[in-house]
């Protein structure tokens, strides 16, 4: 693993209080192979009545979804990766037991046979993929959920509670979710919350065109196949005179991390081709100190192909009276702060502020997307929220995420 630390400013003027912002980037080691673990994909697909509504390309949602799943199957490695598919309305049906991939055409036939009907109960298939599907040694598990509706059977409140409890269970088991929603009838807050509770790199995305699920599924598989270091854990501990104001991570999406006291912690199952990035904002009670000044300690651990690894590094700035030494603000750090703030503004509906921030950071593409999509319908706004959290900071990660 390669670790890079970029300080907003390394040399600062002597002061009572300063803001120190730093960006930490983890990247795969270009000289090493990926871990080459088997994928263990557990797909939970909605087949409720509303999936009969028209989608893109003259297909219904269910037709487009079946086509996307079928086309993405070719990326699974025969004799190696494991697949399990469950469909659900108010009841669930296992259409493919956890199976090491062999005959892809046989799987396609099973998918083609899926018919729609009924309302939406997600907790039963979720429980099945968490409890009944047995763990597979040396693999990267992922539960992929696709839905277009509010969970509502037997009741919305009870079903949401049950799903969140299962998300907590997934968090304890370390099995991440990829949650996809389409249309405008599903509860975006709830699905997003479910992904956040499951943790370990779980995410939620709105899908405007069901056919685009093929790319989403393919990205997911490519990312998992590129995983190099496993079980990555990071802890950032501030010095006594330093407060951590905010902490963010960016892969798979921008996410504010909780700060407990002087510590920020995160963990995720594998470092893939996108790498990982963290932005940490601190307030330093420097008390007019002069010279090198330690802000925080970063501790990292992981399981590599060649055994366990750890790294630790100090975040150190320098307070100086020499004005010529004062560093300019690092461009990447500043743009990350602006893009992060722009994303927050987008999520809270402050579209003008978001546009200004993205424009200031030179992220004109994102500013344009905000301008166009914010004026549009709810479907577009959901797309915008997914696009910003996934892409606004793609410049600092190894490879762009969702297309």
């Amino acid at each position, binding site marked *: 693993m390669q670790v890079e630390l970029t300080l907003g400013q390394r040399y600062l003027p002597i*002061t009572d209080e300063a*803001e120190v912002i730093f960006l930490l980037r983890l990247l795969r080691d270009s000289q090493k192979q990926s871990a080459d673990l088997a994928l263990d994909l557990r797909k939970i697909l909605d087949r409720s009545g509303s999936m009969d509504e028209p989608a893109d390309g003259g297909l219904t949602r269910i037709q487009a979804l079946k086509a996307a799943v079928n086309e993405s199957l070719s990326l699974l490695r025969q004799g190696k990766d494991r697949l399990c598919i469950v469909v659900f309305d108010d009841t669930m049906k296992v259409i493919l037991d956890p199976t090491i991939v062999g005959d892809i055409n046989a799987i396609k036939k099973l998918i083609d046979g899926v018919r729609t009907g009924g309302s939406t109960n997600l907790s039963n298939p979720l429980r099945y993929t968490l409890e009944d599907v047995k763990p597979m040694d040396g693999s990267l598990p992922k539960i992929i959920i696709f839905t277009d509706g509010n969970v509502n059977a037997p009741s919305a409140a009870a079903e949401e509670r049950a799903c969140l409890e299962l998300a907590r269970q997934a968090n304890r088991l370390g099995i991440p979710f990829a949650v996809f929603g389409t249309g405008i009838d599903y509860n975006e807050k709830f699905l997003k919350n479910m992904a956040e509770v499951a943790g370990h790199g779980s995410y939620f995305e709105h899908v405007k065109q069901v056919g685009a699920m093929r790319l989403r599924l393919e990205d997911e598989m490519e990312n998992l196949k590129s995983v190099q270091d496993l079980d990555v854990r990071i802890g950032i501990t501030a010095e006594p005179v330093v407060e951590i104001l905010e902490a963010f991570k960016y892969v798979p999406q921008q996410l504010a991390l909780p700060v407990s006291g002087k510590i920020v912690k995160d963990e995720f199952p594998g470092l893939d081709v996108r790498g990982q990035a963290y932005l940490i904002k601190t307030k330093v009670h420097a008390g007019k100190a002069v010279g090198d000044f330690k802000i925080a300690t970063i501790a990292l651990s992981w399981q590599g192909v060649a055994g366990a690894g750890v*790294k630790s590094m100090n975040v150190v700035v320098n307070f100086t009276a020499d004005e010529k030494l004062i560093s300019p603000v690092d461009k990447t750090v500043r743009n990350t702060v602006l893009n992060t703030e722009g994303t927050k503004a987008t999520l809270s509906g402050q579209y003008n502020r978001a546009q200004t921030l993205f424009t200031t950071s030179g992220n004109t593409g994102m500013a344009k997307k905000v301008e166009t999509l914010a004026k549009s319908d709810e479907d577009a706004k959901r797309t915008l929220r997914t696009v910003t959290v996934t892409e606004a900071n793609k410049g600092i990660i190894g490879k762009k995420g969702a297309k």
Partner: protein
Amino acid sequence: MAGEIKCNNCGLDNKPGAILCEVCSEPLEVTVGASVPIIASSSAAHTPASAVGIIGRACGLVVGGNVIDREFELPKDDFGFTIGRTDLDQGIIPDVDLTKFAEKVKIGQDVGYTVSRKQAIIIRRMGRLYLRAIGGAKTMIKPQNTDWKELLKDQEEEILVGSRFRFGGSEGYVIFEVV
């Protein structure tokens, strides 16, 4: 006070280091540039008990306790290469030129340099790397997890990922780490 940044929107004086205004959250007008990322050293990397250590690929410059930049690559074949500062008058052009780190320092009554014309050689033998002092300014080495020690002329020591070495005395020096 020095270094405070006035917000063009609300007029607040913001703390040094700030990027957004603390009160109105507008972007502050600051001088922007590119800095050099600090590359984490692998000095704490676990190695299996049976292994002797990891052979490094490059040497990074250490400033303020951290590796801030990859400075030069290590030899990949079994030939040594010299490290020092260029002196064209004497026809000395080392393989790794550290002229930019060679500061003039006062050593007692004399004037010396933090890096000699012929400071050290890095040798690769049987796939392992060694640093050998060849005279001039002081060469110190700090193998992983131990203290600094001086390498006298013609002494050598194996270097692995995490090893640090230092050219120059207390008057001025430059430190590298194998990465």
